[in-house]
């Protein structure tokens, strides 16, 4: 048993080591950390385990952005409004002190009960939300505050007003602003990383993912409806496009996996926050001494290297 496991782990590490060939994330210095993370994860996710991640990522008790803010930041001051049209409650932004220093933080926010869910539009942002996010990014850049982005969105809101207010353009410009920032940026997918709505705020120097989070180009249901012509095949779709953290790490899409307490983040939000806080601090420490121009250059080079072709 133990030998099997060891062989398996070695195999995975070898595969991870060869990933540079795919032009993915810079993995060289991080193998030790990966070893630790893989020890936790223990085995390749099966289709069932992938689906379990989908369920855990969407769990109704899973900690949301403000649950982590409460546990990780002092002196939190939430900022409101895009200075143009509205304040989008599905995406919260603000300033706070993280381990003694001021940071700018933004994150998607779902609701707990029906009333709050409606207020927060189930975490699905309008263009106004992305414009508020861009406002915070630029504020952070002006004042040299590191930016932390917590991603947890089923998808950007697909409604008439959202289209009229320029959903596509807002998502594009939000990424463009992130590509220009001269301050350290760390993003972490803490639940659902749903497509364009997620990448809008995830073009960061370091992209992390919680152990049971998912990162997808389309919801499993949407993919199944289009390719299988049956939304009921969501499980098959999820198994086919592999939205789990381990596969995202293998593909170089994320730089690290943040452990969760046994059974998922919702079983012990305090522990989940502690793990997240440590990972964020570690990522920020690594970026602290990098010059603004180098940050920008490396960030763009990293994203420009993503993709597999012949």
């Amino acid at each position, binding site marked *: 048993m133990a030998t099997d496991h060891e062989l398996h782990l070695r195999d995975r590490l070898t595969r991870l080591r060869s990933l540079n060939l795919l032009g993915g994330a810079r993995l060289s210095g991080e193998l030790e950390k990966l070893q630790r993370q893989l020890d936790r994860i223990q085995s390749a996710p099966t289709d069932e385990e992938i689906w379990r991640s989908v369920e855990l990522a969407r769990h109704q008790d899973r900690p949301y952005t403000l649950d982590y803010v409460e546990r990780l930041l002092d002196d939190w001051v939430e900022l409101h409004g895009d200075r143009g049209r509205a304040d989008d409650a599905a995406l919260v932004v603000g300033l706070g002190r993280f381990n003694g220093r001021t940071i700018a933080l933004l994150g998607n926010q779902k609701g707990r009960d029906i009333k709050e869910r409606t207020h927060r539009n189930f975490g699905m942002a309008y263009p106004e939300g992305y414009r508020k996010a861009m406002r915070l990014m630029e504020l952070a850049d002006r004042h040299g505050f590191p930016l932390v982005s917590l991603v947890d969105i089923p998808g950007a809101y697909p409604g008439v007003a959202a289209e009229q207010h320029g959903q596509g353009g807002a998502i*594009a410009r939000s990424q463009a602003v992130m590509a220009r920032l001269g301050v350290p940026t760390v993003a972490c997918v803490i639940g659902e990383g749903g497509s364009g709505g997620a990448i809008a705020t995830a073009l960061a120097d370091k992209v992390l993912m919680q152990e049971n989070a998912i990162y997808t180009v389309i919801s499993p249901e949407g993919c199944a409806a289009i390719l299988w012509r049956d939304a009921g095949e969501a499980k098959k779709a999820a198994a086919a496009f592999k939205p789990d953290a381990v596969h995202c790490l293998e*593909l170089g899409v994320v730089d690290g996996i943040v452990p969760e307490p046994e059974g998922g983040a919702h079983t012990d939000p305090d522990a989940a926050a502690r793990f997240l806080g440590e990972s964020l601090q570690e990522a920020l420490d690594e970026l602290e001494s990098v010059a603004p121009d180098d940050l920008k250059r490396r960030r763009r080079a990293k994203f420009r290297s993503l993709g597999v072709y012949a």
Partner: protein
Amino acid sequence: MSSRIDVSIEHRNVPEPPGKQHPNTCPECQSHYRDDELEAALWVCPHCGHHFPMRARSRIASLADEGTFVEEAADLRSEDPLQFFDLRPYTERLAEAEMKTGLGEAIVIGQASIDGKPCELSVMDFAFMGGSMGSVVGEKFSRACDSAADRGVPLVSVTASGGARMQEGILSLMQLPKTVCAVEDLHDSGQALISVMTHPTTAGVLASFASLGDVIVAEPGALLAFTGPRVVQQTTREKLPEDFGLAEQNLRFGHIDAIVPRPELRPHLSRLLRLFSRNGD
């Protein structure tokens, strides 16, 4: 639970497809044309002005000065990183698309001149897997940005795309930030991106490089939406305005600079290229 978008509805209530129409029959006025008639008319219905989809090669021929187009990165081909298999393997879909379109991917890039002004051209083709953006589309568009920056010329991008290519999973989503970063590098080099949105420019392509043009123009009647009308209707049950997501609505709401009918596109681009050139000549 209730936060999920129930896409199953979309599947169940799909309206009966209208009787299959010949691709050369105008959906607006039912006039029917031969290929050479439409090619000569730039694939615009001579009777009612409806804009038919235009293939990448025809588009390039209609914009570039004769003999100036030099294709780049033509040999790039998609891989199958996820060994993706839905009802059919992704590799089979790719091979079929190449056979059908005669193109290696859903985008063609290269150097060109328009009315004597040198530029880089990037043209998408909806006939290749719905113009979907996977790793190769992202890479080729990025290389077009670099080629434009290296030669100090503007990039003219013509888009037609249903969005990201699902068969490449999360890597296709990563083509959004990839192309955005390429545009930022192009802008840092001092060059312009002129974005021409044609029917349809939706989802991942609209939410990345297409929307970052210094100038954005669209063709009449083109659908330019992050989420298409059918999905919006089915998920929100909202009543959709008549021109939902169309170029005309986008112009009214301030998301594009102009709607330019196809026969006027070349002179329009020529004027823009002149304005963006260093000495304005």
